[in-house]
Every structure is written in C-alpha cells, then in structure tokens.
C-alpha cells in the first residue's frame, strides 16, 4: 500500500474532502465538549446556528468577521504568489497605530476628509510594516516567514509603548488613547454595530476576486505561486510580482486595522492586538486562497466566535472551546485537501516513466502547487 500522486482529480473530490474534514472535526471536538460537561450536539448548534437566528446575532457575526476579512485577504494575496506573509498581525496593528496618529495629528477634520485619510494612513502603516521583510526577501533572499513573523511582537510592543507613553490617557491614566475626533467615526449600517468597514472589505473581496480570476495579472500571480521557476522561464517577473504582492498584502491588513479602530473602538487600546492577523492565516488557508473562500471562512469563523460567547453563557462551556473548534477544523481541512491529491494503491505503482530516467523511483512526490 502506498500513496501515488493523482494525475487528474474528479470534480467532486475537493468538496468531498472538506465534508469529510468537517465530520472529522465534529467527531474530534465532541470529546473535549463532553469533558467540559456539555452535550456535543447542543454545543455545535450553539456555535454554528444560534448566532444566525436573530438580526442582532447576524450583526455580531458580521462585526466579528470584518477584521478577519481584511487579514484573510491580505494573507491570501501574499500566499498566492508564494510569499508567505505571516505578519498580517503586525501589519494590522501598524495600520491601527498609523490611523490613530492621523486622528491625533488632525483631530478636527470633517468625516469626508477624516475617513479617507484615516484609512489611507492605515494602508501606509501596513505597507511600512511589510516593507522591510519584502526588501530583505527581494535583495538578500531572506526567508519572509521568519522576518514577517518576528515583526509581529515588535508591533505589539510598539503599541504598548505608545499607550503607556505618549498616548496614555491623561484623564484616567489607563493605557488607552483618548477618543478620536467625531470625524473619525465610520458610519453604522442599518442601526446595528456593523460599520461601513464591512463595505470596504466587501469591495476589496470583489476587486481581489476579479483580479485573481479574470485578469492576466491573476494568472501570473498563480503561476508564480505554483512554480516560480517555470513562471520566470515564461517571462514573468517573479521577484517584482512577489514584492508588489507583499506590499499590497501589508496595505490590506493595515486597512483592516484602520477600519477596526475607526468603526468599533474610536480609540486605540491594547485589545486591538487580538490575533486577527494570525486568524487571517487560518481564514486564507481554509478559504483556498480565493477571495470568495476568504469571505465565506471569515463569516464562518465570526459565527463560531459569536457562538462561543453564547455557548459559554448558556452551556457554561469555556469560551476557548470556539478556538479549539476552529483550530481543529483548520488541521482537518488542510490535511484532507493535501491528502486528496493522492490515491492509495495496493502493491507496486506503475513502472516509472522511462523519460525520467533511472532515478525516477519516487512514489511519494511533493505536493504540487
């Protein structure tokens, strides 16, 4: 028995793999939920369905999904070209910090100016945070996984430093900034807590989706991500595309940070460092690095987050159980999606292709693309 790479895969296979992963997730998480003293079926219902039964619940789900939409999109854009940006967290925080700086520099701007400038500042903040790893990768070939990841705690420290230093609240003395001027407030949608940042996110999803699927650039990005050598051979400028994607990725994450402070908090607090960037990696990966996939997974994870709060109240389940559920889902989906590329064969594989010469005895090949 051995695994052999499939040459073709039937259309039903990818959805089937995800379905199997979901079932495995339910089976694996039932144990911990049981241990925590709740009935698994009731818990799953709370996690997934209950939040969607009331208008207020749906609003909360969308509110939770909004930052994930940005970070997920940011990660997907970078991963597409094979630039493994794990630094969406830092870029998100840098965006929030830059927006705050803007709000404090010109506190009295009217909303028509304040909001675009605030969002722009966030984008720039994200780009600045993404710049150094991208430069190191392009000029010296230094692995961006390490550099982007290591800049995340630096952003957290910068945030804490600013909030305990220059931006400390002079009235309360708490490490929170003062509130922004009234111009720096994204309008609410339909009288709920959902803010216009969601619309910005949806526009970015649409633009990204169209670029990836319907333009020459999208095809080039995919080619670079799947096979940089072959893409370069075909005249695609691999380094330039990765460089640009890295900066666009930082900008999108930075805008995420901007709309979070402009739409929800209206001030900068340490609670902004809630791991949205790391969850963005999950969102992008589960969403198959596609814009629509990111949207669907962001909403799903937002749903589970809201559900976890309600389950912790009504079923006395620890609120971390929501994290357990999404993490297990990530592992099972990623495994299932990787394994589906292989088929299980009894006995020996077919004779190797003679064109590959005598060294072609490699039954388990690397997972392509």
């Amino acid at each position, binding site marked *: 028995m051995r695994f052999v790479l499939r*040459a*073709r895969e039937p259309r039903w296979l990818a959805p089937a793999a995800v379905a199997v992963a979901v079932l495995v997730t339910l089976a694996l998480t039932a144990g911990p939920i049981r241990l925590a003293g709740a009935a698994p079926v009731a818990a799953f219902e709370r996690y997934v369905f209950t939040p969607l039964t009331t208008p207020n619940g749906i609003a909360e789900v969308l509110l939770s999904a909004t930052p994930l939409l940005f970070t997920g999109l940011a990660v997907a854009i970078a991963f597409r070209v094979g630039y493994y940006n794990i630094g969406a967290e830092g870029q998100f925080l840098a965006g929030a910090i830059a927006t705050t700086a803007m709000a404090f520099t010109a506190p009295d701007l009217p909303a028509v100016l304040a909001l675009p400038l605030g969002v722009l500042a966030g984008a720039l903040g994200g780009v600045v945070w993404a710049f150094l790893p991208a430069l190191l990768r392009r000029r010296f070939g230094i692995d961006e996984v390490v550099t982007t990841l290591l800049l995340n705690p630096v952003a957290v420290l910068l945030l804490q430093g600013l909030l305990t230093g220059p931006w400390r609240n002079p009235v309360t003395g708490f490490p929170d900034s003062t509130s922004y001027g009234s111009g720096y407030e994204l309008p609410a949608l339909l009288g709920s807590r959902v803010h216009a940042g969601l619309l910005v996110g949806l526009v970015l999803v649409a633009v990204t989706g*169209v670029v990836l699927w*319907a*333009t*020459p650039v*999208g*095809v*080039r990005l*995919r*080619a670079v991500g*799947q*096979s940089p*050598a*072959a*893409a*370069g*051979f*075909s*005249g*695609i*400028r691999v380094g330039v595309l990765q460089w640009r994607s890295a900066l666009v990725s930082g900008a999108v994450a930075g805008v995420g940070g901007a709309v979070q402070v402009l739409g929800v908090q209206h001030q900068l607090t340490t609670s902004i460092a809630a791991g949205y960037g790391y969850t963005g990696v999950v969102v992008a990966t589960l969403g198959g690095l596609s814009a629509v996939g990111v949207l669907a997974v962001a909403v799903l994870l937002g749903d589970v987050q809201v559900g976890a709060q309600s389950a912790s109240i009504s079923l006395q389940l620890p609120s971390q159980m929501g994290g357990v559920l999404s993490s297990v889902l990530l592992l099972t989906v990623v495994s299932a999606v990787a394994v589906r590329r292989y088929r299980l064969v009894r006995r020996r594989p077919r*004779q*190797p*292709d*003679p*064109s*590959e*010469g*005598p060294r*072609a*005895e490699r039954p388990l090949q690397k997972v*392509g*693309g």
Partner: protein
Amino acid sequence: MTAADRGGPGASVPARPTPLVELRGITKRFGALVANDAIDLSVDAGEVLALLGENGAGKSTLTRILYGLSRADAGEIRIAGQPVTMTSPADALAAGIGMVTQEFSLVGTMTVTENLMLTGSSLGRVDRKAARARVLEASQRLGVPVDPDAVVERLSVGERQRVEIVKALLGDCRLLVLDEPTAVLVPADVDLLFASIRRLTAQGLAVVFISHKLHEVVEIADRIGILRRGRLVADLPAQGLDPVAIAALMVGATDQPGTPASAGDALGVHGETLATAVGLDGSAAPQAASAEVAVDPARPVALQVQGLTLAGDPRPRVDDVDLTVRAGEIVGVAGVSGNGQTELVALLCGTTAATAGTVCVGGTELTGLDPAARLRAGLGRLTEDRRGSVVLGMSVEQNLVLEDLDRFRTGPFLSRRKVRAHAASLIERFDIRAAPGDPIRSLSGGNMQKVLLARAIERDPTVLVASQPTRGLDVGACEYVYSQLRALRAAGSGVLLISEDLDELIGIADRILVLSGGRVVGEVAAAGATREALGVLMTGHAAAAGERAA
C-alpha cells in the same frame, strides 16, 4: 605494481581465481527501457576496471545496483564467490563496497574528522581522538595528506574528493567505485588521484573507475568494460588499447552487441575513419579540428554568440564559446553530458547570468535582458527540463498563453474565449492529444513537448534553442519533433539543436559543433560527419591532446 605489470594476456585466461566481486546476469528495466541487459562483469583484487559508455548506456544504473541504491530485476552479485543481496548502501558497505559519487555528501561547516564520524557512527560516546587517528591512517593509505581538522567548505574540490575516498575506505573496503572522479578535477589533482589509486590497488583494493576521458582510462585501467544501450559490448584488458580503439568500441563502430570485440577488430572495421579523426585532433590546437564547413554568408545571422563564458570551480563551465546560427539552418551541438550544454542553454535563455561574452538574436543584444525581453527579441526555447518549463498545476491552455497573456485581453480582463480559441487552434495545428482545459500534469512526455513546441514556434522565433528535444520520447513523437524543426528551418528560422543523440544530429543538422569541457572543440559538416569522428571529439581526446601539446 602498475597496469603494465599485471595487464598481460595471462591475466584474462579462463582459469583465473575467484574474482573479488562478480556480477552475473544483472538486468534492470525502467518501463520499456532496458538500462542493464544481462550484464556479466567481475573485478579482481588489486585491479582497476574502467567502465565506459555513452550517456544513458547504463553505467550509473549498474553502479547504483552494485552500491545497493537500486535493485536489479534479475541476476546476482557475488562477493568472493558468495552470493549477497544488497538493498541499501549499508549492505554494500558491510560487504566491503565503497562508492564516491559525482556529488559529494559532506557537511560543509564540519571538519573532516567530524564528517567521517557521521558515517558509521553508532550510538554511544563520540571518540574524536580515535576518529582523528583513523583519518590520518587512511590518509597514509592514500599517500596524500588529508588534514583531519580542516573545515570541509574551505577545501578545494580535489581535497573534498579525497575526504570522500577516505570516508569510503573507513570500513573494511575491498572494492571502491569512483563515478567520474576526474570530471571535477584540475590536472594536478588528477595526477594525485591516480597515484592514490595505484597505491590502493597495490594494497589489494579493487577499483571500478567510470570516466569519459579515454586517455585517463588508458593510463589507469587494467581492464575495460564498455556498455552500450544497456549491454556489455566489450570486456577486455586495457593493455595495448589506445583511445582511438576504445572510442570505436564506445560509439559502436563494431556493432556486434553481446560479443566482446577486440581492439584489432574495431580498428579493422573503421580504421580509416578513426585515423582521420585522430589525425585531426592530434594536431594539438582544438581549432584545427574544424573542417571546412560551407555556410552561406549571405543569409542573415539569427543567433550570434561571442566569447560566452560562465565561470566555475575549478574551471569555467562554459569557456569562451563562439557560435553563429544563420537563418534557415540547423546547427547541432554534440557533447557528452555535463560538458557545458545545460549551462549554455541556461545562458542563452537568460536563467543564468554569463560571466563574460555576448549573445545577439537577430541583431538584438540579449546581455542583461530578462526572459521576457529575450522572448520579444525572437528567442525560442525548448529546454531539456520539460516539466520545469510549464506550470504543472495549470491547464494546457493557460500554459500555452502564459508567455503572451496581454495578447488575450479584452479591456483589462483576460478573455477566456480568446485563450480557448488560441489554444484550440494550436492543439489542432500541432496535433496535441489533450483538451484545452486538461491539467498539463496529466500529459505524456511527447504531448507536453508538443505543447512546448507549439508555444515556441507559434511566436515565429528568429532562432529556436532546442535542448535534447527528443529525449525520452517514442519514435513517433521524435519524428514529429524533427518534422517541426525542419519546417521551422524551411520557414527561415535558425535552430540550435543541443543533443546527445549523434544520429539525430547527423540526420537533421546542417553542421555540428562539438562541446567538450565547456569549449567548442570542433565543427564538422553534418553531411560528412560520422559517429566515430564525433565520438572521438566528444570524449575530450582532442582537448586533452591540445592541453598536453601546449
């Protein structure tokens, strides 16, 4: 003791003692390809057996089987008369067989002693002192100083090779396999290596020596085995053989597969041709090997390469190559694998930057241009790495348009309709057996080559650089590739055809350049070319003769 002492006729009489290592009926197949066909071969203690053959003749497969890296489909290996089964290099080492491959397996940041401690180190305490002593002892055996405390990455290639040999000798090594040991060495290191080999064989070690350099083989070997297309076509004493006779046996001047032929026969059959070839390369300067080749100077130059060089260690990989391909001609490049062909193609395609020299395509200077600009200048490419030339995860149509995506736009968007129509027309025109939406991964080698041909030819290139375009293809696909290359020539493009298949070059090219050691060592008109003449040039004999005369 030297080769001359032992290599007399008496050494090969039937009543010789049990050989140290004996291969009986070794057969290995890869699909339809028979890499080794019932090979019987033996080596005695204290003997140097040189294994010769063109690329793909089965030498590597045979040594891999001997070293336990690969298993034979049939046949047996006997050591001192006892049959042994070897399923891994560990078994081979235990049986007393050591091997030094072309790629070294040393950790660069460790010292020589530490590297040697990695092999065969069992659990328990690490005894650095003892290991160091063993290095010194082995270096004594070799007769060449090896510094046990030197850090490997600071050593020269020749020194690293000595470390590899020491590593192979550490166990109870009785047979040492050296796979093209001199390919990477400078002449001074070759002399040291040969001195070491003589010392070791005097102590009773048997050596299997693989090389493409015939003058070296004549110098060091006691016995010579020649493989051709998986069969052992000669197994005879080295005594009295000269490079010319060996070259004749290698390229098949005496086509009697299976029956070991003697040198005399070989010379008898094709003596005249060979003498011509040798007469040419005997005149010292490599340029002298160039026969008068009629090139119509009125035709525009499609590809002009001047002084193209790629530096390497210990010597340039591509060495001051000049060549010209005119519109409407096919220029072949012959050479034994690893003599700079791959690097030459990489330099032309722009995937590697040249150390010196210029490349012009139809009047456009390519130096410093990226692959996209080279494509625009009229360069077509067909490299030996087919699977590396396409994005395997994408479809046939996407790969077909990848180089010219902007041609298939409607406004800012990629028009799927245009892409599909273009792909469908190419699939029709080039008879590609696939649908536009099929993943390219699922295509056979021949079909993938058709996709790459279609992509290159459709752009109407000024010059097409085609490297090993028929390797691994079946007869029908080969014919197809030839017909396309001829059609391209007829349409007025230039073609640079790099191939190891001499029949292919003689059959399709107008003239043939021979590459050896990264240099162009000769040029012959295809019409008058023979396998033998090319074979002698290819084996580096001419270059070597040139070096020695210099």
